[in-house]
């Protein structure tokens, strides 16, 4: 994969961070990007959290991969989260491979990449690391914390750790506790990587394993009806079946492409670590089985959003979050957006979703600005 990460913004965090696994890390890098301008009253900052395979490059062309940022539909000038108005911050997660401290980084002791000697990290560790970034940027109160999928888990963890640090919170298509099905799917990806003979060899990437992991995962981001509508049984550049194991069907060809494009930009060990962090996420357990205690002290205004065809983080799991918030009297709105695009809906052009997101953020901003004037 591409290693040209020299020109990206990196904050070296000199404070010590004690990880959930017990290890302490210090002097580690956190790569980040910002969009828009922080205003004088510093009340227009939004912290966006990326999902499993995202990075800090939320919008515009990612300078490393040369592809569009993962949330181009939602973030940018004039977009749902308007960077003409808001200051958007995003950090590459701990364990990631876009410049933050992760298994790809060189271990000074061995002069080799950490690989699987990297400590196992959790969503809580990932969130705590980003708090250092906010301190560095001088932001005491965010307008909002937003994120979908694993980004949504970070939103939940963030408000639970720092109940007074954000006016609002938008957890999208996520869960407060990773389900058995999702752990199973992540394990499938990890085993695909580990089954690749290159995985244990030095300086060799388990590209095939990582590609298979991505192919399997990609299916889970879509929906049956979405796949059927887009691909059906259409054949790839041919008039009839070829009675072979080549990619006869368009869907096969599409998945193979998704797999091969992914290995160019992602580190297999990062994939292992980040999926593990997701699996370990259980906010309910952090509060002894009572999720509403996670939000007991929160002053944030919540907008929980799910998608009708998302079977990876279904509406029912998003509703669990809403129920917990209501149980502690939090200020919460919730809507399930109709979309046939599956879990990926939050990354795609789904107008009703983008409108809801935009108007929620704008109304929060107006409220906080009014408060200031009074």
């Amino acid at each position, binding site marked *: 994969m591409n290693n040209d990460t020299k020109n990206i913004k990196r904050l070296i965090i000199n404070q010590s961070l004690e990880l959930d696994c017990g290890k302490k890390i210090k002097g580690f890098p956190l790569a980040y990007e910002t969009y828009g301008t922080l205003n004088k009253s510093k009340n227009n900052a939004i912290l966006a959290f990326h999902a499993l395979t995202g990075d800090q490059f939320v919008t515009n062309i990612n300078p490393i991969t040369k592809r569009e940022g993962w949330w181009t539909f939602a973030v940018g000038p004039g977009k749902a989260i308007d960077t003409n108005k808001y200051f958007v911050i995003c950090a590459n997660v701990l364990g990631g491979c876009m410049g933050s401290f992760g298994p790809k980084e060189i271990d000074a002791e061995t002069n080799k990449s950490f690989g699987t000697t990297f400590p196992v990290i959790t969503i809580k560790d990932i969130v705590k690391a980003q708090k250092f970034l906010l301190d560095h940027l001088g932001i005491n109160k965010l307008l909002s914390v937003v994120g979908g999928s694993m980004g949504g888990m970070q939103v939940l963890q963030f408000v639970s750790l720092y109940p007074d640090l954000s006016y609002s919170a938008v957890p999208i298509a996520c869960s407060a506790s990773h389900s058995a099905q999702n752990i199973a799917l992540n394990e499938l990806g990890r085993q695909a990587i580990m089954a690749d003979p290159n995985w244990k060899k030095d300086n060799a990437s388990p590209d095939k394993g990582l590609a298979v992991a991505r192919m399997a995962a990609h299916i889970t981001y879509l929906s049956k009806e979405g796949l059927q509508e887009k691909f059906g049984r259409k054949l790839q550049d041919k008039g009839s079946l070829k009675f072979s194991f080549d990619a006869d069907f368009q869907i096969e060809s599409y998945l193979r492409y998704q797999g091969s494009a992914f290995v160019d930009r992602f580190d297999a060990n990062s994939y292992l670590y980040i999926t593990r962090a997701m699996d370990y996420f259980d906010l309910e357990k952090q509060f002894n089985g009572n999720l509403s205690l996670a939000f007991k002290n929160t002053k944030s205004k919540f907008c929980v959003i799910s998608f009708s065809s998302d079977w990876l983080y279904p509406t029912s799991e998003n509703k669990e979050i809403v129920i917990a918030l209501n149980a502690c009297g939090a200020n919460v*709105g*919730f*809507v399930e957006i109709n979309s046939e695009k599956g879990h990926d809906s939050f990354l795609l052009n789904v107008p009703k979703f983008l409108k809801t997101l935009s108007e929620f953020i704008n109304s*929060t901003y107006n409220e906080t600005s009014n408060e200031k004037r009074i």
Partner: protein
Amino acid sequence: MKKEFKIISQIIQNNKRVLDVGCGDGTLMSYLKENQKNDVRGLEPKKDFVQQCISKGLPVIEGDAEKDLFQFPKKSFDYVVLSQTLQAFLNPEEVLNQLLRIGKQTIVSIPNFGYWKVRLHLLFKGTMPVTRNLPNEWYNTPNLHMCTIQDFVNFCDKKNIKIDKSLCLTNEKISEITKVNLKYKNIFSQLGIFLIE
């Protein structure tokens, strides 16, 4: 804002917590939030309405009163409002029990099936009444359990539900329902509004 909402907002004291069940586009919630500093929440089954509410900055959750009220803790609101939807539930009694559990007080409004036009419609035309307040035909009406003001008062008596206030509305005119005028109001009112606990 319609007259009914004005009356409901007058019943609600300032700075109190209010849950609007079936809040629609959030008209009443907005009014209460802006003019009476009420801490408002809403529950609404229609996605378009929920999206409109969220756009206005109102904390509304998409959900069905028959399935989703359980999540609100006991007496967690000063007032729970249910405007003209009790008759549309499969199990109105259970919904009402939930409202009474969640709210310290509950405001329920019902279209009065005892209204004289409704009675005459059935008496003379012999078909299910269609009026301005009840615009649907029998085959497409969402109203499964129509009742009269008298029925509702009887129900409250039977279930030991305390009626703190009972008002009725006819052609935008509001008046109080008393024990003495109940039979009369049951004929001449289009809408009953009750504050119960």
